[in-house]
């Protein structure tokens, strides 16, 4: 990359040090949280709750990937669930029509979702704020309508049955956890490198970043493609876990859930969205049994967090720790 050798005001050593430290602290916190999650199957053997946790991890991957795009690069896409749907259908269709083995299908899903993300990211390059949100929202709805209406190929709303990978719930549990930790590590390494600084510089002030020599077009598109590929990966894994793909994977409500988790956890932090994905999804399963007010509660929390606690749960936790140190 030409810009990685150029020195720019955006990459002052002291600034790099500061950001690296913050990201590292968040990475460690996320690793501790994942270690706790890894221990859960020792105490919980109920397949229902293990399934709930697997779906939580699916959402944690999506929230983390969307956070890379929206929280770190400032591109507020409303299509993360759509890329999961694209990934799920890539492996689903390959498996259904050509009997492609799941592992190959998952790799294909990553590539296809990444390529579509690259194209969309390139197309929406110059759109900001509400314009970007609207364009990605229409992209999401068009993809879902096409999937639901191409009944000859996708069987529409009935969905497509897909081969499973294994029967063991615990096996799936650790497979999803492994995928989550792998992506976490990749995002951490990305954010700790100069690329992470470029992305955040673009988010904070695109014009200034360009003036400082950051290749804005390249990095914005790259963030879009990486985030899309990661969402496609999650969708493909989920397809083989559920052994069914339906257009419902791409519903705008699913994106709503991903946005909720990220905002409640803290946008632009590494640990927040991951932890919030577990909290939100497990709590919502639990609240479902006591009155079914879970979506009302979470929607209200999103509004309240966005309005009053902009750094989410991570910000609240950080403030609490700082108060503890001062006292």
């Amino acid at each position: 990359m030409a810009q990685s050798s150029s020195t720019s005001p955006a990459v002052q050593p002291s600034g790099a040090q500061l950001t690296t430290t913050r990201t590292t602290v968040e990475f460690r916190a996320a690793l501790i949280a994942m270690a706790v999650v890894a221990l859960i199957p020792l105490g919980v053997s109920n397949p229902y709750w293990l399934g709930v946790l697997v779906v939580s991890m699916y959402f944690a991957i999506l929230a983390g990937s969307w956070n890379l795009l929206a929280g770190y690069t400032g591109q507020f896409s409303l299509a993360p669930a759509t890329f999961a749907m694209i990934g799920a259908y890539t492996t689903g269709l390959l498996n259904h029509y050509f009997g492609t083995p799941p592992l190959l299908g998952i790799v294909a899903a990553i590539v296809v979702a990444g390529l579509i993300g690259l194209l969309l990211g390139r197309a929406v390059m110059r759109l900001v704020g509400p314009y970007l949100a609207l364009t990605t929202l229409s992209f999401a709805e068009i993809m879902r309508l096409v999937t639901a209406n191409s009944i000859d190929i996708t069987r529409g709303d009935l969905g497509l049955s897909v081969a499973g990978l294994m029967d063991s719930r615990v096996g799936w549990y650790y497979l999803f956890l492994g995928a989550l930790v792998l992506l976490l590590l990749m995002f951490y390494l990305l954010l700790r490198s100069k690329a992470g600084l470029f992305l955040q510089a673009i988010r904070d002030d695109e014009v200034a970043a360009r003036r400082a020599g950051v290749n804005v077009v390249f990095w914005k598109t790259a963030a879009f493609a990486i985030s899309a590929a990661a969402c496609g990966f999650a969708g493909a894994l989920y397809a083989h876990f559920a052994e069914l793909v339906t257009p419902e994977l791409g519903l705008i409500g699913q994106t709503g859930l991903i946005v909720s988790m990220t905002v409640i956890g803290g946008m632009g932090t590494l640990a927040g969205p991951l932890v919030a994905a577990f909290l939100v999804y497990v709590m919502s399963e639990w609240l479902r049994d006591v009155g079914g007010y879970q979506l009302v509660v979470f929607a209200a929390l999103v509004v309240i967090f966005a309005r009053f606690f902009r750094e989410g749960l991570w910000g609240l936790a950080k403030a609490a720790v700082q108060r503890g140190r001062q006292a």
Partner: protein
Amino acid sequence: MSGIDVDLAVNGLITGLFYALMAVGLSLIFGILRIVNFAHGEFYMVGAYAYTLIALGLGVPAWIALPLAFVTGAALGWLTERTLMRPLYAGYTSWGLMRDEYAVIVTFGLSLFLINLVDKVVGPYAFRGPALVETSRVVLGPVLISGHRLLAAGIAIAVIAITAMLIKWSFWGQQIRAVSQNRLGASLAGIDTAKASVIVFMLSGGLAAFAGALLSPVINASPDVGIFPAIKSYIIVVLGGMGSVPGAIVASLLLGVIESFGAVYLSYQYRDAFGLILLMLFLLFRPQGLFGEKGREV
């Protein structure tokens, strides 16, 4: 033009009138705050429910329930502006960077909240409001139309005309236009920008709720009924040029006709996709819309 085409054109125009009730408010909000209100469809939903519950629950005549639905929407708009929109312009200068994201998140969250609240409080089943007139069909040459739809279209024309005139000539309408042309300049000239944005939100909420109430005998209101009308109004404000009221009205009628013909001559299944494709193409290649101004910084 054969008879069926006339029928399609007239029915498309009528659908477009209902779209216009939604889109004008959305466009005004964009003009004054430079945000897209993702909870706009929920004002429509609340209007449909308010009308139906007031008319059927309290036994109030439909003619009184209709303006009450407008009032409910306006009250909700006032509340939204007061509690959630203030940070967009009052102080909080450090939020400047994440302003667009804040607006998207908070209105998106409000939309989810209202849908699920109504779903839990009123119930997920569909509601049908009372029709204004019981005539099941009126034949006008080749055009076949229900009595309620014809009357509702007439009311919609009147309301849109009054709104457009208020924006164009009334004292507050002129102040609103001044703020959307240049916020800082308007406030230097002594215009109360906060009050202008309260008025816009009340008007926008009221109009969307009014559209929901007018259509409630037709749409079988359920909690998520607002999603598609909202998406239509996003398409319209982009086609018409974000912030332009005449543009929104023309684009509404245009979209109504395009969908009406597209559903018959192109594909019924993909009738909802035509507008979305137009929306993407316009945002990518002509973001100022048909009537908007070019090159204004957001």
